[in-house]
């Protein structure tokens, strides 16, 4: 039903904020009430601020890298410092921002509400995960004063065994971060299995929850391998046990296998939640159900499972057997299929839709375009003979930035804007949000499109110095990076200022049909004042925009309720 249509005036007077009890932000006060909270929303918000801080740090490193690469040779720093920049950029962005970004922060805040649950299954474990994340993050960041870190975020042996930088601190930090991730995944799996309310069958689950489910499977099953690997690396640094050290008979390539057995699924741990939130964004802002819901849901799961079988494609030129290369190449291509299905379904959702270009939707559409590029360039790398040429060049750098940043981070920003009013109770500035979203899209492409060309022309990655023929591409890239960084910074600042100055947010500003929009804004301690009613998923027929950025369900009008009661009698 469209906005212009008549709707009962009484809808306008429905309460927006919690009535009978304070919202979760105000239920208790003081430092302790946050530090020891078991409320998933508060834990999620603490994650969120930690992640935004890490994003600032990782972004700073990114800009330092891009500045250094303005010209061949030394621009601002020498090679050692540069190596530390790209290592810390990678480690901070991967382990502290992108992996926990959507699941641990936004997932923690939104998923139980969206599911209709009062909390996650194990609130104490949830808090423990957060503190593990904090400890891991502290250790990782503390490598900076303790000798830096210059191994690359992949910690490849034997270089990571011989470098004099603080590898042990970092790997132990990553070990803790790994367990934080495992516990979050475990918690989500149990929550999704055991906390679905009446009427919420598996195929009434929002696609965001399907995506988080797939992510959690990978978190629980892949991260332990990273855990043991970095633990062995830590012990190797500490006691020279020799398991990865070729001088003692160890096998450095075994490290790569172990590392990518985790880190390939990790790529999907990063991207699948992005796909989940984009499904929500597109559906809500296009006012249409996601086309081919089941195919999208299944493709999330099949991506999660296939991701365990393709780790070897990171090692096509590392000396593994041709048979292994063949198998991994074949399996890698299978990953392309569910990704393609998703894209086609999202595009089909836009057909005959009513598209509202809110900030969230601009990010959602950016995601579609960027992920398409990221996915298509992945085909180049899956073709064995082409990968030999492109492996470890800027082509790969650009490819995975399109996937990890262009897709995941863009989805994260979209999700942040989408749900920001729900958990903070404030509206952000739409104009600033939209301009920044466009800035992110433009800056991102300017940064990374030239890198595809550079890479195909043979510019290897992790290079402090380069041949002058690449300079023009590097300079374009650097300009793009600053536009990108500036846009993200402004949008985050705008969000933060809205905490004080933003308009009070209604219960349902975007007309979402999933359960979180039934909860008061901000939600109460156990999320709902009254048990939520599970309506047909992604059905927007009953929703009307009673005033700009405020939607209500017609059936919630007192008149309807009264009539329904009468009929029941």
């Amino acid at each position, binding site marked *: 039903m469209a906005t212009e249509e008549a709707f009962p005036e009484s809808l306008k007077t429905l309460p927006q904020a919690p009535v009978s*009890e304070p919202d979760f932000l105000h*239920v*208790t006060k003081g430092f302790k009430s946050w530090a*020891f*909270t*078991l*409320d998933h929303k508060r834990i999620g918000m603490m994650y969120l601020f930690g992640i935004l801080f890490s994003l600032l740090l990782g972004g700073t490193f990114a800009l330092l890298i891009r500045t250094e690469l303005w010209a061949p040779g030394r621009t601002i720093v020498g090679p050692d410092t540069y190596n530390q920049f790209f290592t810390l950029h990678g480690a901070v962005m991967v382990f502290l921002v992108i992996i926990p970004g959507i699941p641990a922060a936004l997932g923690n805040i939104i998923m139980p509400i969206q599911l209709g*649950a*009062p*909390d996650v*299954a*194990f*609130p*104490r*474990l949830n808090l423990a995960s957060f503190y593990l994340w904090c400890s891991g993050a502290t250790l990782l960041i503390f490598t900076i004063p303790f000798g830096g870190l210059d191994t690359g975020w992949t910690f490849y042996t034997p270089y990571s065994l011989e470098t004099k930088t603080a590898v042990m601190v970092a790997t132990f930090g990553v070990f803790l971060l790994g367990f934080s991730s*495992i516990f979050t995944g*475990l*918690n989500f*799996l*149990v929550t999704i*299995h*055991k*906390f679905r309310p009446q009427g919420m069958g598996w195929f009434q689950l929002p696609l965001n929850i399907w995506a988080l489910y797939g992510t959690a499977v990978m978190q*629980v*099953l*892949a*991260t*332990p*391998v990273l*855990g*043991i*690997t970095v633990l*062995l690396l830590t*012990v190797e640094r500490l*006691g*020279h*046990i*020799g*398991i990865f*050290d070729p001088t*003692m*008979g*160890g*096998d450095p390539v*075994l490290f790569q296998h*172990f590392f990518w*057995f985790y880190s390939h699924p990790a790529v999907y741990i990063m991207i699948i939640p992005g796909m989940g939130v984009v499904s929500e964004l597109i559906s809500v802002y296009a006012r249409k159900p996601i086309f081919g819901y089941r195919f999208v849901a299944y493709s999330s799961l099949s991506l999660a499972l296939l991701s365990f079988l393709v780790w070897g494609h990171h090692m096509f030129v590392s000396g593994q057997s041709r048979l292994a290369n063949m198998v991994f190449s074949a399996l890698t291509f299978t990953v392309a299929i569910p990704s393609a299905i998703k894209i086609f379904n999202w595009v089909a959702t836009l057909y005959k839709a009513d598209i509202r270009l809110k900030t969230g939707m601009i990010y959602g559409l950016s995601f579609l375009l960027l992920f398409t590029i990221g996915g298509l360039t992945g085909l180049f790398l899956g073709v064995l003979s082409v990968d030999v040429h492109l492996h470890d060049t800027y082509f790969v750098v650009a490819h995975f930035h399109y996937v990890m940043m262009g897709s995941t981070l863009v989805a994260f920003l979209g999700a942040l804007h989408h749900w920001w009013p729900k958990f903070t109770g404030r509206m952000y500035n739409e104009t600033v949000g939209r301009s920044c979203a466009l800035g992110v899209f433009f800056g991102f492409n300017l940064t990374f499109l030239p890198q595809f060309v550079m890479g195909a022309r043979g510019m290897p990655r992790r290079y402090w110095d380069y041949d002058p023929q690449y300079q023009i591409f590097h300079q374009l890239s650097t300009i793009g990076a600053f536009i990108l960084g500036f846009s993200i910074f402004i949008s985050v600042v705008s969000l933060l200022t809205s905490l004080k100055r933003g308009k009070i947010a209604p219960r349902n500003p975007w007309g979402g049909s999933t359960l979180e929009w039934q909860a008061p804004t901000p939600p*109460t*301690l*156990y999320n709902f004042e009254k048990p939520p009613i599970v309506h047909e998923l992604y059905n927007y027929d009953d929703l009307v925009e009673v005033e700009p950025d405020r939607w209500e369900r017609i059936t919630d009008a007192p008149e309807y309720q009264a009539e329904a009661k009468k009929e029941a009698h």
Partner: protein
Amino acid sequence: MSDAKHDDHGGHDHGDDHGHGHGSQSRFIQHHYDDAQHQFDSGKFGIWLFLAQEVLFFSALFVAYVLYRVHHPEIYSYAHKWLDVKYGATNTAVLIFSSLTAAWAVRAAQLGQRRLLILCLATTIVCACAFLCIKYVEYHHKWKEQALFGHLFDPCVTPGGEELITKKNHCDGTKSSVDYDMAADKPTSGCFEISKLDLDPNRVGIQADCQVTEVQISKDSKGKDVEGASRPITDRCDDELVDLLEKIEGGGHAGDVPTHETAGAESADEKAHHQKFPCWRPSYQPAVCQDLTDSAKRAQGQGSKPTAGILVEYGDDEVHRDVKIKATCKAPATVAPVADPMADKANVLAEGVKAVDPAREISTHEEFELESLGPPPEHTSMFLTIYFAMTGLHGIHVFVGIIVFIWLLRRAIRGDFTPDYFGPVDFSALYWHIVDLIWIFLFPLLYLIH
């Protein structure tokens, strides 16, 4: 909703009265669960996921085990002999029994048999502790034999951990050694390379009998150049010190050198000097060095020339390169040709052992060597690395299990567990079973090779 006030022990600290109702029978049912069954089911699903995670956590080590075993079977068949099947088997029995008591504890908790529950939990804890004690004995044994991982693998040391020439004894630090070139009949000061060290008595040069005769320091502890600070070595430390002082300070005390005995107590001055100029000792027993890196060449008698090593102690502050050591050696007696190393094993063994250390016993390592296997293959330490990594990680899990079971025991004594609420016992027992299961895989893989 009426029972929300019972929730305070359940762990959520909000303390408000709002929420979903659950027909709870136990005060440990947390607020956000519908009822006891809901909480139990969630916990059970959670612990199974955790166990899946545990299996994958160990899986990398199993993969490493398999890969290295496929590529280097000789390492495994050689090195597993360091492990004592008796200890391993005992530990297996102990763990299986503790698994039984853990399972029994669950049953007892379900039936509300509190005493039996306490007994079972206590037995499990005792068994777990016994397991760790036996593990300690095993580890200690290997520590003594230097059958350790990575660079610490140095089984040439005598049993009992006596100081012989081990890797720790070379280069910068407190001790160093000198290589003596038999052919050129002159010592070349340098670090001992552990890879060149062999205590196998069936090798050329075992009888080399060297004595350090002179030590020269080119720099003092502060890094200043010292001219001519050398003198012959004697057995007496005090003489050493005094004489060295004389040399360096240009005499002055000639004639009435205060010996350790006459001076009574050391003056502060002397102490300072003592720190600055350390005590020199003569060499230890000689040992045989031979290039072990290329066993094929050795078999053909083409290994590098044998050199003898002599161990010398010097001060903490000295750097190896600042110390020059001279030694005299008697020419080595010729031993049976290397081509047939096992020709007359027994004889040579007796002779060799005598020459190396008259008083010591043969180490387990040497026993294997002499029995059939020869010296350890290259990278033998890899087996021990995997052994320590796997059993060490497993040991940590046992340790965590002990803590968990002590917590359970405390709660059981307090009477927390009822037929409605026994989740923690059930979940911990499942954890304990996986720990047990992992050991059941480790035991044959590590101890029962062949």
